[in-house]
């Protein structure tokens, strides 16, 4: 019965639409009658997104990825992933007559003999650098505002896997031209793999189809680069965005922003237009960069040959931290045991970098466990209001930055007239001590800023206006904050260290003790938000306009 009635009503509407609307209306109706899409449009079109510049960073990453897909598809029309040897006979004179792989030769043809090829290569590569950089900045925003807290922990993990996959995409792409730089990069990977005890050599043989470099690796990396990795990335991006829709977007603390609402603009029409336009802006910036600045001049590097290594051989920036970690290892870190050499210089790097990556990936769960916070959070933290988290983040950034800059130790040495050893030793120190220093400084700065906020809420701004009272005393007039501003300053949640509670058997386990200890460390230094009582007391004593000191 019901189905019949609804169908009738749908037909009625269709007739009505034909009468009233023009082409747009009838086309929309045509599509809706066949897909029932209006429900989805209604739902998504009314979706609210808060407007803040830092919320667009993920979008930048998404758009860079679209640019990469477009330019990459162009490149696949001309690139040939084969390591068969040919003699180059293209337009670039200083490589004429040089034997090279088909992969290198076809990349040279893309660069010099195919119209728009070099531009597309540069668009692809610059967009790739921007992609990972935008992900990195997006991740920092998520971390420092606490957007990873419940219910978004899983989306943090998905995003982080996307970050790793983006690096994998970057590295496989970097290796495809089979030029000197990419071959050197692969050789380092080969060395890393071979440094793993017992299985290393076999894994390397499996990957390269025999001894390095072999004739298989470019073809295999190509399959990963254009098929498997992009497919996983697209699937994960879909999940990532689905979660954003499901969870709704977070918002910064401000007047009227609560855990129960989202203050912002609906997707349709303005936000969608803005976001769509923003895609073209990002595309435009990438095009501009790609048309003005060279990236990866493979014609300088020449074909891969295992013997030469150029000065200034580095990976692209996002692999730099791993390269830097290896540069920071002191020489001679290896030992021989049972007739086998154990390369600590490689194993330590793999373990430390691996631990760092895993820690970042599971950080939301670690913090939730320490704080015991099971509430949902849709209002972001201002970084100062979570001093310990912000300090941990600063320590992580310092650690990463030290490793990262170590990858450019040689460039720093030549350009700042330093010794290479001096640069390396300095960075060794900053890698080990820098995070602690950064932790303490950041935490103190956060606490100081919180104190300042408290002061402002209770006593207002210093207006700079000095007034002489009838008694001869000079006071500075303090301007009270308006209530919109005050909302931002006082609305954050306070935490206390976890209490040790005995379990059902009446015992306190060692795990609970560790947890309580960590919780105390996390929260021991804190500035509590201004309460209503404090506020009314502060303003009750004084006239509304003028409050002294």
């Amino acid at each position: 019965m019901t189905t019949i009635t609804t169908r009738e009503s749908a037909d009625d509407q269709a007739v009505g639409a034909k009468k009233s609307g023009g082409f747009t209306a009838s086309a929309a109706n045509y599509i809706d009658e066949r897909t029932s899409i209006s429900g989805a449009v209604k739902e998504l079109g009314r979706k609210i997104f808060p407007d803040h510049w830092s919320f667009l960073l993920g979008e930048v990453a998404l758009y860079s990825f679209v640019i990469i897909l477009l330019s990459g598809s162009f490149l696949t029309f001309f690139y040939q992933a084969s390591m068969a040897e040919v003699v180059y006979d293209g337009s670039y004179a200083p490589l004429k007559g040089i034997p090279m792989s088909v992969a290198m030769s076809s990349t040279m043809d893309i660069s010099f003999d195919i119209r728009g090829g070099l531009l597309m290569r540069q668009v692809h590569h610059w967009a790739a650098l921007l992609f990972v950089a935008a992900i990195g900045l997006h991740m920092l925003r998520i971390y420092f505002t606490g957007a990873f807290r419940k219910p978004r922990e899983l989306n943090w993990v998905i995003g982080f896997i996307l970050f790793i996959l983006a690096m994998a995409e970057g590295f496989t792409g970097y290796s495809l031209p089979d030029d000197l730089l990419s071959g050197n990069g692969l050789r380092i990977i080969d060395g890393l793999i071979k440094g793993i005890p017992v299985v290393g050599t076999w894994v390397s043989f499996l990957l390269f189809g025999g001894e390095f470099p072999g004739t298989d690796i470019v073809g295999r990396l190509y399959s990963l680069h254009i098929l498997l990795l992009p497919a996983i990335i697209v699937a994960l991006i879909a999940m990532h965005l689905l979660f954003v829709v499901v969870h709704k977007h977070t918002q910064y603390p401000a007047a009227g922003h609560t855990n129960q609402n989202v203050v912002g603009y609906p997707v349709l029409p303005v936000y969608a237009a803005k976001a769509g336009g923003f895609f073209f802006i990002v595309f435009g910036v990438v095009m501009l960069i790609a048309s003005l600045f060279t990236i990866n001049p493979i014609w300088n590097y020449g074909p891969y040959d295992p013997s030469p290594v150029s000065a200034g051989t580095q990976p692209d920036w996002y692999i730099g931290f791993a390269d830097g970690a290896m540069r920071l290892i002191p020489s001679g870190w290896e030992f021989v045991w049972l007739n086998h050499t154990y390369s600590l210089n490689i194993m330590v790097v793999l373990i430390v970098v691996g631990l760092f990556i895993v820690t970042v990936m599971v950080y939301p769960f670690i913090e939730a466990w320490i704080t015991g916070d099971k509430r949902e959070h849709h209002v972001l933290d201002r970084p100062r209001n979570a001093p310990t988290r912000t300090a941990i983040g600063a320590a992580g950034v310092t650690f990463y930055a030290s490793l990262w800059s170590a990858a450019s130790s040689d460039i720093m040495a030549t350009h700042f007239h330093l010794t290479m050893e001096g640069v390396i030793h300095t960075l060794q120190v900053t890698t080990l001590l820098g995070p602690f220093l950064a932790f303490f400084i950041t935490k103190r700065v956060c606490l100081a800023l919180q104190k300042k906020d408290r002061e402002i809420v209770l006593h207002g701004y210093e207006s700079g206006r000095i007034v002489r009272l009838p008694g001869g005393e000079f006071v500075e007039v303090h301007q009270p904050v308006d209530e919109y501003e005050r909302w931002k300053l006082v609305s954050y949640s306070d935490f206390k260290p976890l209490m040790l509670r005995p379990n059902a058997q009446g015992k306190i386990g060692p795990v609970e003790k560790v947890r309580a200890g960590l919780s105390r460390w996390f929260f021991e230094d804190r500035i509590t938000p201004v309460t209503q009582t404090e506020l009314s007391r502060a303003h009750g004593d004084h006239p509304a306009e003028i409050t002294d000191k």
Partner: protein
Amino acid sequence: MTTIKTPRARRPRKTGRRNPLASVALIAVGLLFTGGAYVAFSTSTAVATTDASSQQTIDQGEKLFAANCATCHGLSAQGSSEGPSLIGVGAASVDFQVGTGRMPLQMQGPQAQKKPVQFTAEQTAALAAYVASLAPGPAIPTADLVKASGDASAGAELFRINCAMCHNVAGAGGALTEGKFAPAIENVSGQHIYEAMLTGPQNMPVFNDMNMTPEDKRDIITYLKYVEDNPSPGGLALGSLGPVAEGLFIWIFGLGAIVALTVWITAKSN
């Protein structure tokens, strides 16, 4: 004979007093002379050093040496604790070190750095002649060996295999240990590049004619001049420093521009 001569005699009569090709021939002769004079001038330094055996030049060089170099290298170039012996280093070495401004040394340091050249070409030649007169050593290369007229792709391959590990594939320079470095090879004359390979200044190994023939050296110069004369087809080269420069660029200017645009897009209208 006569039959051949008559048509020749007739032609000028038809066209006038001069053959129409005369002006072309005149220009050709003129160009030949100016070009020849230019070649003679440009090779004059090499010529000067070859007949540098003249005692007058050597004496002039000795005086210059005593005034400018002897403090470190010793009065008879025998060397001291401050500087190495120059006996047997040859004219090529002097021409490179003095001609690029590395000598006299600006300051003590990990290695001699380039500075504005201190001596004129004649003075440099005189110094070279003096040092060359002390003992046999590598001579200054002739002009045809330092011209960019070789095989660029052979030179590029040789450069990648023998030079790029210190100087970078595009000749942008690179770091060595303890503050030493391989300098960038931009705007260095072919003659100085050749002499550097031949004599191995500072920390550079010697590439003598046995392990790298003069033709190989010329090919390398040809490649370097090609890179210098042909700007990167991809646009500005960012110093040809590789991924570090690219990474810095995308973070500072690429992402910087994008962030500025996000701020602009989300700005509230007044």
